[in-house]
């Protein structure tokens, strides 16, 4: 097993576990953290699997850089909305989840 395949498999585990966490939790911040870890797992798969049994390939690496910036922007936006929501209502979950 090459190093890159190992990265890809670790990525698979990260994606699966964090997806489970995303679905299970109702606290918005935890869901956001789960989403971030899923993103990291996805990037690992992108970089690892594409370069498995291949020469080092700069294209997936550049794609991951772009993906990281997009993920940072999305996470920041989600955090700002989340903090506004908390400031406005004092809740950390969406309205329909409160009774769960």
């Amino acid at each position, binding site marked *: 097993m090459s190093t890159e395949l190992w990265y890809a498999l670790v990525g698979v585990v990260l994606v699966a576990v964090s997806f489970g966490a995303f679905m299970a939790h109702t606290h918005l911040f935890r869901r956001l953290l789960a989403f971030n870890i899923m993103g990291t797992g996805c990037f690992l798969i992108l970089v690892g699997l594409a370069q498995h049994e291949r020469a080092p390939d700069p294209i997936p690496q550049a794609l991951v850089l*772009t993906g990281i910036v997009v993920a940072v922007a*999305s996470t920041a936006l989600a955090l700002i909305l989340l903090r506004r929501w908390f400031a406005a209502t004092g809740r950390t979950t969406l309205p329909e989840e409160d009774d769960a």
Partner: protein
Amino acid sequence: MNRRRVFTSVALSVGLAVMLGGAVLTRTVPPFDLAVDLAKGIPQSGVTHPITAVLLQFRSYDTLLEIAVLLVAVVVALALRDPQGAHSAAPESVMVDSVITTPVLASLTLMLLPLMIMTAVYLLWAGAFQPGGAFQAGAVLAALGILWRVSGRRIGPFATNRWQHVALLSGFAAFLAAATSTLLFGRPLLAWPFSYAGLIIVAIETVLTVSIGISLLGLFASAPEPVDKRA
């Protein structure tokens, strides 16, 4: 958390792991090898580092849109800054409970200021021939700004300050202007002329660095002030 929810989440998680694991382990060597085309194209790209070449030459359109994404995030952050429409006492004040008032942080930040700026400039310059570039340098600048704010110093009102507003926009505006200018010369969008490619890329990256730094700092600084935790 109720048990049914946990159970379905675990089930979905396991299913996803099996699916992805199966896909990853059964992958065969692909038919296309872009790394070869890339290696052939690098001499005409104006930079020597392949990742910078991909980001600002071969797939520069993705980078343009990605900077737009960052800008949209900042715009929404600015828009939500003051939801009541009334100007609260100090809308740009440093978040009260995130200031760490030790003298160590304050003096350390002061010492780190020139070092971090120098690191950012180095990362920007080095991006042409080794890992580095606009994003990395911009992230270092943003980290500096965050340290500055967390240690209790003000950077000034955000987005009502003319210079900060200009800096925020200038990265994307410069990139867009450069991209469009190629159309005026009858070339496709973002097709840098060979003799100027290196220069254009460095110039765009420089403006982008400042812009990305200010954007990331703005995203940090625009979170609302903590309120009393009443329902």
